[in-house]
């Protein structure tokens, strides 16, 4: 799922310095799971903002809402009545959610309350790690389910590089070498022969973000 981290309070206070009445909107999906922008975090941030502004002598009224998925226009529409009552919106959803609200409410400023960080997995409670870069052409079938695009610092398709040492990466020594993980996994599956298959260079300019905005169209689903 999408992972995010709350922005520093000082930065958020700066965005909101000229507003007295805002809506703080969370999201019930990904950012709830990584505890950056769910209902609980909305309550906590709203409380912190109210107290900080009270202490500064400029009280802030912060309304709270947490739609099920902020990135869906239908759920954004549910906020319409509330948004009419406020001067600005602070969204603690991912960057997609922020943009959905911005598109939906053209006359209301929408500010981001979190930094959207990566697509990741929960390693353990309170720890999340990057697993996918949405590169547009998945090769996990060839690498035993371990992604070298997201997990190898050099994004090597035919690793490991010469810097892998004792299973660790030379760029980030606390991180596991992705190609060591791929080797171990293929070894466990009895598929080590896959290490000898050359993975051809990708057409990054066609398949990935390099060619600009990506879009998926399903004609059968359109209404």
């Amino acid at each position, binding site marked *: 799922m999408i992972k995010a981290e709350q922005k520093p309070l000082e930065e958020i206070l700066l965005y909101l310095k000229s507003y007295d009445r805002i809506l703080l909107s969370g999201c019930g999906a990904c950012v709830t799971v990584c505890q950056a922008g769910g209902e*609980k975090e909305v309550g906590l941030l709203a*409380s912190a903002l109210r107290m900080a502004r*009270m*202490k*500064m002598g400029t009280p802030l009224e912060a309304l709270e809402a947490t739609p099920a998925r902020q990135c869906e226009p239908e759920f954004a529409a549910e906020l319409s009545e509330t948004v009419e009552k406020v001067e600005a919106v602070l969204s603690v959803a991912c960057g997609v959610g922020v943009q959905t609200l911005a598109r939906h409410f053209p006359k209301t400023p929408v500010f981001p309350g979190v930094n959207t960080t990566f697509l990741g997995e929960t390693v353990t409670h309170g720890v999340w790690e990057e697993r996918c870069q949405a590169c547009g052409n998945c090769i996990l079938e060839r690498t035993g389910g371990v992604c070298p695009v997201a997990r190898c610092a050099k994004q090597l398709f035919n690793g490991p590089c010469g810097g892998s040492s004792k299973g660790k990466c030379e760029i980030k020594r606390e991180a596991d070498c992705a190609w060591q993980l791929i080797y171990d996994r293929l070894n466990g599956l009895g598929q080590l022969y896959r290490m000898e298959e050359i993975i051809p260079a990708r057409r990054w300019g066609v398949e990935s973000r390099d060619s600009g905005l990506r879009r998926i169209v399903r004609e059968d689903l359109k209404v």
Partner: protein
Amino acid sequence: MVNFEPKIVAFCCDQSGYPAADMAGGLELNFPGNVEFVRVPCAGRIETLYLLKALERGADGVLIFACYEENCQFLRGNLRAKSRLSYAHRLLEKIGLEKERIEICHLATNCGPKLAETLHRKSEQLKKLGPNPAKI
């Protein structure tokens, strides 16, 4: 501030803090004038939000009365409360409030006098800090 009687919200674990408060009451120990006890089934039930909300809604200080470490009936409830407290302290610093306004005290059921002493000490400390400037 001569007549300032700080408002303290005291979250009490049902396995230690609450029976200790009960014992202190039975011993007719004196409490500061403005304390509100909140009974919780375990200190692990106390969310960071509760600590902040207490301050936002009018408390000058917050105390958590939890079991001694390694003595939690639910194994890690008191440790969870401790880590949430340190998160709340970080938030207080960013808000611009003194982190001393929220504190944890570990005790057991037979610690009525310790509970009363802690409340008095906290009350004196809050009198020196003054009223919570961020309460709404």
